[in-house]
């Protein structure tokens, strides 16, 4: 799966939790879930659970710790699907 395909799937996953539409329109690799999309921190776990379901991977606690941005999340997904 290419990086673009992963970002595209991730965009669909985060959409329901986004509270800053401007940030969502400009979503790119450097987008931060909390600072740019204003996603409530209580919804970060939903994104992680949705990522697990969508990509059929398991996110361990160490990986989860870093999942605050598109870039970090894409890197984790890539590592897990290639493992």
């Amino acid at each position, binding site marked *: 799966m290419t990086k673009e395909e992963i970002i595209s799937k991730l965009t669909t996953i985060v959409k329901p939790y986004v509270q800053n539409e401007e940030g969502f329109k400009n979503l790119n690799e450097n987008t931060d879930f909390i600072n740019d999309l204003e996603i409530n*921190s*209580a919804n970060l776990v*939903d994104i992680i659970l949705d990522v697990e379901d969508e990509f059929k991977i398991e996110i361990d606690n160490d990986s989860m*710790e870093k999942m605050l941005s598109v870039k970090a999340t894409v890197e984790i997904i890539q590592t897990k699907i290639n493992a």
Partner: protein
Amino acid sequence: MHNIGNDIVDLNLAKTQSNWQRKGFLEKQFTQKEQDEILSSENPFLKVWLFWSMKEAAYKCYTQKFKERFFAPQKFECTIISKDKGMVVFEENTFYTESISNALYTSTIAREKKEETVIFFAVGLASTIDLDLKIKLAAETGVSCKGIEKRKTTIGAPLFYYKEELLTTSCSISHHGNYGAYAYNIGSKF
């Protein structure tokens, strides 16, 4: 330096925004001990959000000091001491918490030290909480409310200045749904 962190959960919004019964929700964020306590509680929903606000307030207190961001709610373990008092332990750090819960919201303040120091705090509407804070801060420090300016640190924690003078030594603001809450302390010169 005495750091403060706070958090507020709008309970009506939490009902629709999150599903705590979703598979994996508790397992990823709460320790086994916390999960047992939640599930055996009379009102598991309220316990979930009480623990969550304690973890979040403690995390915000921690990040003010260490300036790094991460998502590891399970590593912040909550212990309830009394009806409104608790403790959160993260690695070598202990945070002391005070929470207010009612039918509308759950809000927690976390601090690093157990000793009572003066903390100004209030719960209000999300839309006016910054102004509420400025009015209170102006009254406490004797400066004009209009001249108070909010800035943010690199990790996003708020600081309040009057001209170039820093008024707050530590400050935390939280919004969720209809509600907002603030907690801050001020320099000893005031």
